[in-house]
């Protein structure tokens, strides 16, 4: 049962084709990644979904056309986008505040999640006092408490150092197993996509089209030895698709 479905979505800015032909679907409780080279127009796709831009093609949510007013998505941008002037608690309740939830009620909804997100005791801190990993967790908390149908994560860990990124990825995978959010992740990190996703759409360079759709067969938890051993081969295969976009060596659709 797919919740989000895109059919032949195209987008051009002026004369520049950014998205050539994107068809994809995301099922309920599924973690899907869009993997592609930098500048492939991945973020443009999110702009179409959130209504910031308009393109051609069909975009359906629960079989209904997406419009600007149907707010199905909670969006997490590339930077953590925490407001430096707001304390962590007030940053995490921002989405609820915009929805019109009263401050007390918003805080009550965030409070039980703070410990799970490793932020207990830091509610009164300002973002600049937190490490990069903690900031990303705060940003994710701000995203998930909105309780929208689906999470849109736009390269959320791109700015982190390698070790912190690995730690946050592990943490996110664990959180996802617990909560089973319906999520669409944009990334150019092959390992990240394999580590987190149920399925991966591999995009070409601009103008972007779907090169391959890959189901990730690895068992969860993904930080288990079994999963880690199988991941290597899959990562190599995907990397090959990305670096040699012309289907060679008999790589056909599976």
């Amino acid at each position, binding site marked *: 049962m797919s919740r989000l479905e895109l059919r032949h979505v195209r987008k051009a800015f002026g004369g520049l084709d950014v998205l050539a032909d994107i068809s994809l679907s995301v099922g309920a409780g599924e973690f899907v990644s869009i993997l592609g080279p930098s500048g492939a127009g991945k973020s443009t796709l999110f702009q179409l979904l959130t209504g910031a831009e308009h393109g051609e093609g069909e975009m359906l949510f629960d079989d209904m056309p997406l419009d600007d007013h149907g707010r199905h998505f909670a969006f997490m941008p590339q930077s953590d986008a925490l407001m430096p002037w707001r304390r962590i608690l007030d940053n995490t309740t921002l989405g609820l*505040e915009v929805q019109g939830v009263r401050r007390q009620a918003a805080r009550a909804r965030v409070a039980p999640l703070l410990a799970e997100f490793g932020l207990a005791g830091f509610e009164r801190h300002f973002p*600049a006092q937190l490490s990069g990993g903690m900031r990303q967790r705060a940003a994710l908390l701000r995203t998930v408490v909105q309780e929208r149908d689906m999470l849109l994560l736009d390269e959320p860990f791109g700015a982190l150092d390698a070790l912190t990124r690995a730690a946050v990825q592990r943490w996110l995978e664990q959180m996802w197993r617990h909560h089973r959010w319906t999520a669409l992740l944009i990334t150019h990190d092959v390992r990240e996509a394999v580590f987190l996703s149920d399925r991966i759409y591999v995009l070409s360079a601009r103008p972007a089209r779907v090169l391959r759709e890959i189901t990730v067969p690895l068992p969860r938890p993904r930080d288990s030895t079994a999963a880690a051993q199988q991941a290597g081969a899959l990562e190599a295969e995907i990397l090959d698709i990305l670096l040699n976009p012309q289907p060679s060596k008999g790589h056909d659709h599976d």
Partner: protein
Amino acid sequence: MVSSSSSRPRQLAVLFANAAPAVMSVGLLLVAWELYANYSGIKPTILPAPSRVFEQAMLNREALIGNAIPTIRATLIGFACSLGAAFALSMLVDFFQPLRRALFPVFIISQTLPLVAIAPLVVLWFGFGLTPKIMLVALVTFFPMLVALVQGYEATEVEIGQMLRAMGAGRWRVFVLARLPSALPYFFAGLRISITYAVVGAIFAEYAGAAKGLGIYMLNAKNNFRPDLVLAAVGVSAALTLILFGLTALLQRLAMPWEQIVRQPAGKGPGR
């Protein structure tokens, strides 16, 4: 916060360490001036020694204070008007971008007007009362404040705006939640600069014609060959500017607490 009690004395020590070079350079300048005035044979009616200026300031303190009050009033009222107008217009410009292109050239031209020429004209048109002073103070402070605010709004992190719109926030919510707070550092930078212009603007307006005020006091003292009193009035205006400058710094600390806390070594805080 946990660290504030222990860091307070350290903050004071840092403050003194920061102020020491400035105090020393000003002190040295005064000493050199004192020595030159006393031993070069120059007449006190040309260049009075700082000690004489101070002495005369004390003797004439009632007149100085009496003349400082209208200057302070003109400065503050004029600056408040300018601030209100700059804020209102900055919002208009932020919401209707084409206005920017229509209005900014006018304001830039207003900044090229020489105060020497404009001040007497404004006094001629609006008399010796408070009105022309307010107008001149507003004229010199309005544009820097407007530019600071407009630039500040535009310094808003793009992704914060995108995220807010994805959350369903309209333009007004985005302005209040993101653009306005993002402008605060720019606003205070503008405030510090314009508040010094404001005092100068008020004194210039009084110089061009007033019943009372530091500007007209300076003019009269000069005409009476009393450079010591001119300099005493200059001292008062300098002190006034410094106090206002300090107040804006204090206001900034109160309005932007996150800047203060962030400057301290990364607070580990409670928990963990």
